[in-house]
């Protein structure tokens, strides 16, 4: 039995469609390369804080379509379902459907830049587990070894 769009889905996503900041959730060969790069940074004395790796496809689906419907850029009845997210976008009227979607936009904290036509993406390297965000801090000069063992100064 589908559940109508609304704040319920914000809570649901925070439990069932979370993003990862673990390198383990990336896919090879990118994962192996990312690990090697982080190790080289740490060996050189840098502090590495990984903030994002794989982003949830289900979460992206909820972000994208709630934004689209709330902005009136598509009809709720036109949205396709996705596996594992039993959501009912169409509340029976445009106003009610937009209201449900708007609750999700607010709950997810989605930004709506003026004149923006670009919703949150359905696909990206993060969603396909081939991207990593990290904060790297160090003091002085960082000598990170290249893959071939030679020095590279930053």
């Amino acid at each position, binding site marked *: 039995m589908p559940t109508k769009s609304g704040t319920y889905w914000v809570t649901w996503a925070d439990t069932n469609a979370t993003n990862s900041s673990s390198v383990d959730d990336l896919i090879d060969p990118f994962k192996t390369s990312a690990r090697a790069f982080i190790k080289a940074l740490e060996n050189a004395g840098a502090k590495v804080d990984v*903030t*994002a790796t794989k982003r949830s496809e289900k979460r992206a689906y909820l972000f994208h379509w709630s934004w689209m419907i709330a902005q009136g850029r598509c009809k709720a009845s036109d949205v396709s379902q996705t596996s594992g997210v039993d959501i009912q976008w169409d509340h029976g009227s445009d106003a009610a459907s937009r209201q449900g979607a708007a609750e999700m936009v607010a709950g997810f*904290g*989605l*930004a709506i830049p003026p004149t*923006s036509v670009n919703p*949150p993406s359905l696909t990206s390297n993060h969603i396909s587990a081939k991207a990593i965000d990290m904060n790297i801090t160090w003091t002085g000069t960082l000598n990170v070894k290249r893959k071939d063992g030679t020095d590279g100064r930053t």
Partner: protein
Amino acid sequence: MTNTSTSRLARWLAGPILIGIAACAPTPPHNQPAVGAPLESRIGWLHGACFAVKNNSLQPDVTLVIVKMDEPQSVIQANVLDQTVSDKVCPALLPDRKATNSAQGLSFYEVSFHDQQSVELGIGIVGLATDGSTGIDVNGDGKADRFTQCATSEGISFGVWNGTPYQGRPLWSGYYHLGYDTRANCPGGAVQR
């Protein structure tokens, strides 16, 4: 005139008018940074009622002049309520965003808008005594400045420019990490972080 008068705002957006805010501004209250303080500590960005700025010592009741990044832009005012770490107040502190936004050295403040206004995205300036009706001059050089926002692949880039936007270096720039992917539309791929 009202603070949101589009006719006058369109005038200052279309062609900056020389103004001398610094020369005319009254002395700010004791708890507000002076106009001459570094721009980095006086200018920040807003998402909703949350003001993010590289200044951890703003006092309650400090007044903000806010440029709403709507089309057309408009100017409103708000008061700082208090510093906050709540993601209910600050979307920038939601779990997917907190680490990156906090790592920039930003402090986050809940604000109260005047006249029951609201803001989706905006740039806030501390310590200016102006309603923005003739433009906003953040550095006191007599020129009205330009305010911009554009999307990067994972966030929003804000800027304040002394001349033509996206040419040369901005007077101030800020970056809001959204923690989700979107399509970048910053001119020339510019990301002012």
